[in-house]
């Protein structure tokens, strides 16, 4: 058995041009080289080495609407594609004029999932919502969501409306990641305890590859509702710069007279960000606290069963 066949996959599928490559680029901070764009359907399974939530590998597939060559290739590789899938994320272009066709392809993907990976979680993203008038967005999304939920039975699908030009994309992917973490409630409780012990203003837990916020605790109201996305963008830009120098980002401390912020590796799949509003507490103290907490949280990750562990390594 090849190692590719055994790795758990996150499938990102949708019609050609629905925005998957842009979405992946934005979420995973992948540089989009010009030649991978618009030269035909995405045959991406060999290129995605993006590790996500530990051991999940992101695969991007164009689904439906191309020439017969792609159709045949897709059909013949179907079992290969849909085996070992942990998550299916299907992207619908809200502007698409071929709704029937889109639903048809979606259903055939669901059939393949039922056959090959019946335990997979299914998420549907109704994308490019910025092209719909603001007052109509809720209505149109509700309509699509009802259709999709109906079509997906017996599988359960969770629907989100997204656009790369507002906060909905980040929030949708954060929700997806949240649902993929098995012991997330436990993580949250522990995070709250940790925050209260070290007297932090806010503590955030990020997924390592995407800097999507998995969980957070705040002890008082914060002014900026978009701060998670902003921090994520800033860190991802920094990571892009670091990767150009073949360096990798490990930790960061930002300090001024009002606060001190620490971003550091936490567990093997997460980063933590701690905000202290009492600048008199020395950095070293906070860093020691974070280091001790790290051990505790890593134990938490190992506790759960082998199937769902984030920590699983398959050889």
């Amino acid at each position, binding site marked *: 058995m090849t190692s590719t066949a055994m790795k758990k996959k996150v499938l990102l599928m949708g019609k050609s041009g629905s925005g998957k490559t842009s979405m992946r680029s934005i979420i995973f901070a992948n540089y*989009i080289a010009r030649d991978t764009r618009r030269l035909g359907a995405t045959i991406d399974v060999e290129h995605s080495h993006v590790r996500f939530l530990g051991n999940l590998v992101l695969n991007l597939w164009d689904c439906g609407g191309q020439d017969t060559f792609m159709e045949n290739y897709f059909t013949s590789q179907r079992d290969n594609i849909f085996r070992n899938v942990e998550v299916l994320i299907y992207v619908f272009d809200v502007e698409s004029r071929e709704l029937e066709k889109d639903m048809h392809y979606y259903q055939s993907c669901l059939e393949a999932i039922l056959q090959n990976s019946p335990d997979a979680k299914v998420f549907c993203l109704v994308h490019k919502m910025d092209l719909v008038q603001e007052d109509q967005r809720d209505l149109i999304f509700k309509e699509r969501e009802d259709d999709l939920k109906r079509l997906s039975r017996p599988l359960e699908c969770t629907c989100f409306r997204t656009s790369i030009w507002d906060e909905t994309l980040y929030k949708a992917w954060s929700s997806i990641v949240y649902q993929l973490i098995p012991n997330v409630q436990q993580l949250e409780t522990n995070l709250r305890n940790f925050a209260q012990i070290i007297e932090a203003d806010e503590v955030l837990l990020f997924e390592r590859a995407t800097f999507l916020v998995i969980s957070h605790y705040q002890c008082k109201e914060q002014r900026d509702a978009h701060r998670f996305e902003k921090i994520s963008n800033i860190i991802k830009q920094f990571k892009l710069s670091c990767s150009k120098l073949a360096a990798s980002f490990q930790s960061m401390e930002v300090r001024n007279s009002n606060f001190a912020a620490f971003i550091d590796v936490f567990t093997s799949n997460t980063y933590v960000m701690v905000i202290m509003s009492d600048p008199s507490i020395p950095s070293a103290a906070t860093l020691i606290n974070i280091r001790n907490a790290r051990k505790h949280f890593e134990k938490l990750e190992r506790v759960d069963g082998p199937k769902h562990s984030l920590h699983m390594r398959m050889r």
Partner: protein
Amino acid sequence: MEDDGKPLLDPVRAEESYIEADQNGFDSLDPKSRRPFYVEPRNIVDKDTQERVSAEASVMNSRMQYYSRLTGSSDRLLIPPDHVIPAPDEIYVYSPLGTAFKIQGNADGSGKNPSIITIFAIWNTMMGTSILSIPWGIKQAGFTFGVIIVILMGILTLYCCLRVLKSRAAIPFIDTSSWEFPDVCKYYFGSFGQWSSLAFSMVSLVGAMIVYWVLMSNFLFNTGKFIYNFVHHVNVTDTDVGTNGTDRVICPFPSKEHHANHSADEYMTYGNNTEDVFDQWWHKTKTVPLYLIILLLPLLNFKSASFFARFTFLGTVSVAYLIILVTLKAARLGFHLEFHWFHSTDFFVPEFRSLFPQFTGVLTLAFFIHNCVITLLKNNKNQENNVRDLSVAYLLVGLTYLYVGILIFAVFPSPPLSKDCIEPNFLDNFPSSDILVFIARACLLFQMSTVYPLLGYLVRVQLMGQIFGKPYPSVFHVMTLNLIIVGAGVLMARFYPNIGSIIRYSGATCGLAYVFVFPSVIHMISLHRSGQLRWPSAVFHSFLIVLGIANLIGQFLM
């Protein structure tokens, strides 16, 4: 990427970033210039007190900064579309001096003229040389009937203009924001619409250019004659029939049976009375039109007309001066009106005449703005006032025409002269020695010589653009076109310099398409397509089309 050396978070000013307006011309190739940032609130200079950047704008800034790192600088994949960019009043332009300014109004420059400017622009554009023919037109139609016709034609052309204005909005699914009326015609009628609208536009433009040539020859002749007489202190004993006294009004072509169309002979004999060498070389129809070629043909060959567009204020000055001139003459000459309803007398014309189609033809061109009204109203700040502003502009134009027309007609000294003497160019009724009129002629001459190249440019752009795809295919093409137009002008000035006829024929022809037929048909088709065409509307608009055709036929019959 380009600037890896630059720290991502500038340690000195970690929170500074600027949001830039893509639309207002900052599209430089420099990728750095496209980076958004926002400015500390204390650095934002505005009339009001400090305003913070809104949360949406701030997070959009963060997004745009991040996305710009994900693609190559020339790649347009993750460029924000227009509808996600914050509203212009949330955008600040960063000055390198450390302050930031809000963008005033709409970034791309459209829609910032207040109503009064728009009304003035429309008035200015419509006020052409047809104002000189209005008294003659009133004479042709009869005084009362003439006034009624001015009002009716004004309302009619205004309604058709509103139809033109609204024709663009009725087109579904397509972005028509850069369309003009010929594009709308092309949409509805295909290439027939495109070519026919081009042909009719050419009729109006080339007709106007010919009228201009005739008038300019006239004015140049009179100006030259005045200057010659002034310099040589020649006391001209005018052999023309006219009044006596200081405010002399002449009748250049007196004849009992006074027809609208002067024969060519009458024009030819004008000025041949003396053997003067000057008069031989400075002849209204034989030589002066040719001298104009030297002045104007080079101007026509300019590639761009923006230089001439600066002189549009001269048109306003000329019209204002004409109004003052008319008022002064009226004050000095006094009123001479008698009302004879249906039959003509020696000195007066009936109030209702059968020659009225000539006046409607003139008025069609006098109220013509339909081929550029969309463009003119695009710059109106409050678009919802477009109808109101257009109506006010038409009202002002109508009042101006009525003022000039009624006054000249009313004060034309009828006991010695017949009202029939009123010339299609009313300045011709004043001798070349009249100093006030000399100033008017000189002003108009200068103004028209700046408008003439603009008209030529419009003809060239439309004709060449349509046939060859670009406005300046080669010097040869453009020169040929210019020679044709100038040749037509010279020939008309030589053999048939009756501007009344030229105006009414070209007015009725292009009015047929642009004023009567196309707007009505397009309106009916768009109503029909949306299933809203009702009988009264269909009948009314068909009646408009019939009126347009009758207008054209009337020119030939009457």
